[in-house]
């Protein structure tokens, strides 16, 4: 059988969303970012909202989003995505606005902007990539870096006595009344990607139904920053990151569903 005989519509199992441009990703091979970025595009395409969507890409590995998407994107300063999203949403309440933020962006420099946007219940979607490290600047300690984990600015491992504890921010945000939906996912297996896609769809539907802030956290890898192969990184993530940041829903439809006694 020739290759061309197989390329038929009825044999199609997966295709790139038409909302993705031809531009190759600048993410490192093996990184979870690319999967999350294209999954967002798929959800927006399936909901048919691409003419009404505005993405916010703040500084970090997320900053080049506008290169990848076939819909409007605004770059933001480091940490300011939620303020920029607020500024857009308040003058364009009928549009879909989402931010795509890393852990340094959302949980360190942008903590105030994130916390207050959530507290106002801004009707936006926040996609939060938690890989425990600053990827773009080359692997420095993030607020979410695990205890004992080595980075270029904690080369002997994060010492919580002097460097603070890993900041588990989404359960904190879940407790704010303005927040409607908080969920945590990963993209290391096809099954997990499917769950993420469903969660993203829920988040955008919440925005459509004006339910308040939806937060979709993705615990991801940074094989380059972690100094591992992609496979090792995923295994390390499952073994270590998921213990501190367990997957699952924290808040659904405005109701807390997590067990606050569990070590989240």
């Amino acid at each position, binding site marked *: 059988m020739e290759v061309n005989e197989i390329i038929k519509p009825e044999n199609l199992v997966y295709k790139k969303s038409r909302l993705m441009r031809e531009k190759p990703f600048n993410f490192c091979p093996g990184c979870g970012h690319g999967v999350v970025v294209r999954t967002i595009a798929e959800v927006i395409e399936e909901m048919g909202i*691409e*003419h*009404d*969507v*505005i993405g*916010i890409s703040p500084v970090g590995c997320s*900053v080049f989003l*506008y290169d990848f*998407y*076939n*819909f*409007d*994107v*605004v*770059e*933001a*300063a480091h940490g*300011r995505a939620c*303020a*920029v*999203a*607020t*500024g*857009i*949403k*308040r*003058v*364009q309440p009928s*549009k879909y606005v989402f931010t795509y933020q890393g852990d340094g962006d959302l949980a360190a420099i942008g903590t*105030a*902007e994130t*916390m*207050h946007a959530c507290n106002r219940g801004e009707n936006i979607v926040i996609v939060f990539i938690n890989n425990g490290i600053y990827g773009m600047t080359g692997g420095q300690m993030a607020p979410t870096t695990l205890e004992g984990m080595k980075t270029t600015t904690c080369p002997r491992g994060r010492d919580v006595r002097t460097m603070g504890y890993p900041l588990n921010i989404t359960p904190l945000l879940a407790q704010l009344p303005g927040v409607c939906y908080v969920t945590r996912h990963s993209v290391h297996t096809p099954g997990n990607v499917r769950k993420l896609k469903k969660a993203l769809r829920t988040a955008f539907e919440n925005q459509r139904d004006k339910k308040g802030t939806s937060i979709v956290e993705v615990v991801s890898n940074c094989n380059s920053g972690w100094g591992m192969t992609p496979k090792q990184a995923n295994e390390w993530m499952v073994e270590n990151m998921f213990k501190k940041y367990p997957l699952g829903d924290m808040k659904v439809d405005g109701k807390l569903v997590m067990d606050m006694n569990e070590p989240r």
Partner: protein
Amino acid sequence: MEERELRLMKGNDAIAEAAIRAGFDAFYGYPITPQTEVMEYLMETDATARTGMAVLQAESEVSAINMVYGGASTGHRVMTSSSSPGISLMAEGISYIAGAELPCLLINVSRGGPGLGTIQPSQADYFQTVKGGGHGDYKLLTLAPSSVQELTDFIPLGIDLAFKYRNPTMILADGALGQMMEKVALPPQRPRLAEYPDWATNGTPRGKERRFITSLNLLPKEHELVNIRLQAKYREMEKNEVRYQEFMCDDAEYIIVAFGIIARIAQKAIEIARENGHKIGLFRPISLYPFPMDQIKALAENPRVKGFLSVELSAGQMIEDIRLAVEGRKPVGFFGRQGGMVPTPGEVEEALYKQFNIK
């Protein structure tokens, strides 16, 4: 001539009323003395009910300026107002707005610094406003009103210029202008925008290419071109947007150069000096960027003019631009009060006599 409504208004209230009437889509701000009444007035008079304008109190000036960045990126008329320490916090966002070429209106009802300083009027933010403030080579179109009326008029003008050049406009006022009451002729209500520029990221229209707003360019070759384009825009602004006022300069032997509130005091000092037989004139830059270089140069080249005195509420900042314009042709003296102190016309008059050995 359009029908104007006369009212006695405090400067800060006039800013808010003028913003509503100018058809702004949003005001994002954070309280700081001496401009807090701006947002209070917007809330009290229910700007949102009047025009649909969004008014939001942010959690910080950092957030407020980034909300402005967001609103401006969608091609809406957005603004913020603050005072000196708050403007310092906004510096990062202002640089991004200038770099991404977004139109918006910024107002600094400035106060005495450095640091927490004082809440009294000052012009010590001149450098911050016209020489940078944030990082990178950028310029803010800067308008300096000297009355509540001008403050009011500069609000629609400021945002219209911002859209004309895709550049932020700054109104550099001061605590006195914000707090004092004067008669104001208010313009009629102007509608909010119904159409937005092609570059605005407010959802990709069907059949159109997606838009994006950014100030990022990793390739230096490309980024130099961006900077060259920005500079070309600034040259265009310098060509078209110089604004100034001359008072009794026609026969003047000495010229006071002053902007904003202090120009009012200088004008009084000149009237007194004229009564005493001294030919003094006032040159008032209204646009601080672009600075009226050529006009001051022309005065310096006039053989009748013997010297200049820069009068400022600072240790002397605008004087550097005056000296650049004068290029050593005539002496340029300085008189200023600092830290929130405002001189009387008598003090200005005395300083003038002392500087130029006249009496």
